[in-house]
């Protein structure tokens, strides 16, 4: 097991190098001169522009810029953004907010998705099942920004149950509505995935055996059906955490959440290579690690799965 984990961590290294290189190259290839853009409509002051270019290594060829960036990573100093602030500090501000939002969305979609899916699966073909299926289809069908704007307008502005945007603290309470919006589509997927998986397992031999043994319905459902049904769901949820963090740009925009998406969007627009790469790299790492955790969870859910070294 330990060897397995070590191996997986070693695999992160090429992923890390590849991701940073690719993203750095993409930002480098963006058309337009980011320093000239700092001057807006005004004439570019050549002396000032030259000074800033050398400060951000923008006067160097691509490969030198990239290697300098890699060097800065390994010395734990990610450099500065255009406002002269340390990128490490910027990451420290935005990631906790988005992590909070993504984890809340994940809990929402996990807890409610599995619960609704389980009940729907157990009552296959009944009224509840039908309602939930239609509702989930609608949720999947509507783009996230439409749902976001509508919920913001009706719940935030018309009813006044929540603030339309998050407060400066971006507290858990503020993030409830954005988290629901963010998790809504995935919630529908989790629900449908759980339902299908439960229906499949209900007909399995071991469930029939468990019932025949005289086990309580509660035990049959929780231990035999649910636990076995969770493997595909957990796979989905694990992959979804990364998606939620990176994909929160739209939701963050609607609810004005001061998180990763907001900063990333601004950094892309202003062509701040190191900021973009740093943010994306952390996102990639989160994605990899959450997938590793999912793989490890398999063994816990289904003892038949073993990790051989």
């Amino acid at each position, binding site marked *: 097991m330990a060897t397995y984990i070590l191996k997986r961590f070693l695999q992160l290294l090429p992923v890390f190098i590849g991701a940073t290189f690719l993203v750095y190259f993409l930002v480098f290839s963006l058309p337009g001169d980011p320093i*000239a853009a700092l001057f807006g*409509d005004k004439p570019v002051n050549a002396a000032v522009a030259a000074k800033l270019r050398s400060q951000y290594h923008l006067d160097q060829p691509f490969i030198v810029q990239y290697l300098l960036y890699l060097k800065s990573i390994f010395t734990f100093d990610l450099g500065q953004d255009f406002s002269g602030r340390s990128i490490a500090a910027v990451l420290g*501000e935005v990631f906790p907010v988005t992590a909070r939002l993504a984890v809340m969305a994940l809990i*929402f979609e996990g807890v409610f998705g599995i619960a609704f899916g389980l009940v729907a699966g157990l009552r296959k073909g009944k009224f509840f099942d039908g309602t939930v299926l239609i509702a989930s289809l609608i949720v999947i069908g509507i783009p996230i920004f439409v*749902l976001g704007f509508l919920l913001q307008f009706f719940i935030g502005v018309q009813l*006044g149950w929540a603030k339309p945007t998050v407060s400066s603290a971006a507290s858990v309470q503020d993030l409830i509505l954005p988290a*629901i919006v963010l998790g809504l589509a995935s919630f529908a997927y989790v629900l449908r995935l759980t339902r299908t998986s439960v229906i499949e397992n209900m007909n399995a031999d071991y469930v029939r055996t468990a019932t025949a043994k005289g086990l309580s319905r509660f035990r049959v459902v929780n231990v035999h059906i649910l636990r076995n049904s969770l493997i595909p769901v957990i796979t989905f949820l694990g992959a979804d955490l990364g998606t939620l963090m990176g994909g929160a740009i739209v939701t963050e925009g609607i609810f*004005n959440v001061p998180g990763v998406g907001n900063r990333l969007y601004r950094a892309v627009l202003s062509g701040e290579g190191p900021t973009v790469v740093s943010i994306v790299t952390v996102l990639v790492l989160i994605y990899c690690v959450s997938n590793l955790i999912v793989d490890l969870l398999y063994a816990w859910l289904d003892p038949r799965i073993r990790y051989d070294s």
Partner: protein
Amino acid sequence: MRFSRTSKALGVAAILALAMSGCSGGSGNSSSSSTGNSNKVIIADGSEPQRPIMPADINEVGGGKIGTLIFAGLVSYDANGKSVNELADSIQAPDAQHFTIKIKKDQKFTNGEAITAKTFVDSWNFGAAAKNAQLSATFFESIKGYDEASATGSTVTTMSGLKVVDDTTFTVELKQPESDWPLRLGYTAFMPVPSAALADPKTYGEKPVGNGPYKMAENGWQHNVQISLVPNPDYNGPRKAKNGGITFKIYQNDDAAYQDLLSNNLDVLQTIPTSAVANFKSDLGDRSIEKPYAGNQTIAIPEYLPAWSGEAGKLRRQAISMAINRDEITKVIFSGGRQPAKDFTSPVLDGYSDNVPGSDNLKFDAAKAKELWAKADAIQKWDPNTTFTIAYNADKGGHKAWVDAVTNQLKNNLGIKAEGLSFPTFKEARDLATSGKLTGAIRAGWQADYPSLYNFLGPIYKTGAGSNDARYDNPAFNKAISDGLSASSVADGNKAMNKAQEILLQDLPAIPLWYQVAQGGWSTNVSNVDYGWDGVPLYYDITGK
């Protein structure tokens, strides 16, 4: 259309969401009870400053809003764009070139440091020197010695035109006479900074110390979230704070800010988002404002393009200008959010005139336009297969709608091919303009840095000027401008500027379209909201209810 289809779904989704979240209500509708006094902290919208707060490094609205409130310069501008003395006692120059500036006694920064003539000289020298790479360094270009200090790689850190006479007096020598130079002194670049700022600008820029009507609250700058200002009790100028402070909440988009305004979570919204322009007056009633400010929109047509040079080019530009129905576009596309342009400047400026000779060229007249176009064709044939393009940036500003409207009018009224040419970002469109590689027209706009007619003319149309996208080059115009600059009074200068405009109105290096109009709104918690000449609310005047 989409709404009706999805509204049912919304109901289900909303019920689902609420049922599942248990009690998502939480905060409820507890808008702070209005106290009806000057202690109310005003919540306004802002954007994250691009650079640390250093006066000469401020180059965009996010930092500009903060800078104008935490600093006080020699002069400031009142609501009508008139410049009034703030720290200055007197600014005099008999020849519009050698200025003697006297400042008021006993002025202090909020850290207790005294503000003397030397403070100003040091601050300005710092701002101009290439070594310090300040984005707004160009503002000092009129001062003698600027060129030496600002040259690439220069180690000169002082300008020879600045001399301290005594504690409260200093002299400024300009390179040439500029009658409107004192008007510039209210711009953020000219604000004084304490000595600590010059020693360590980076640390200072995070926690700036100024001398304006407000000061930064303790840990007031939460990056990307909000910036809190509190009144400066020692400030005694004309912009005394009438509220308990201002918190600039940083928004990523105006739509979110507008929702906050509707639910009283935001007190003042500077700019109504495009999506709400059609209905903000009915949403807000008398809590809204529409007021022109010192900005305009034009389309610049570069003279280096063969089809647009010489006499034929001039006639064609006049034809284009007359083929555009400005009244219709401002009404239909902007719902009155713009005013048709009648000159190259802005109606909020001192010296503005709506009937400068030649302004008829900006009036819609399809028949005359066709006639002029035919005249141009007689000189130099227009290839009917070429398309007249207007380049614009699609990332912000909502330019597509009006560019399409203008090109459609050109198609209909002149019978030529015309279309918009969109660029994903502002910087790409700008790159083309600054490198002189435009293939057609480009949208251009100007927002004045200080309220002066010259600011709308000199920096854009003078030969070799930095923002001369059209590469316009007319010695007669240059001469008219320098005549205006050497005038002995601002009033005489303005007359000369309008003379210069007569030349522009014939040549039309850029075609003025409309004047910008500020559209804003406020919550039920505040009153006394008015906008300044620059389209920014006069935050210091706002009170709670």
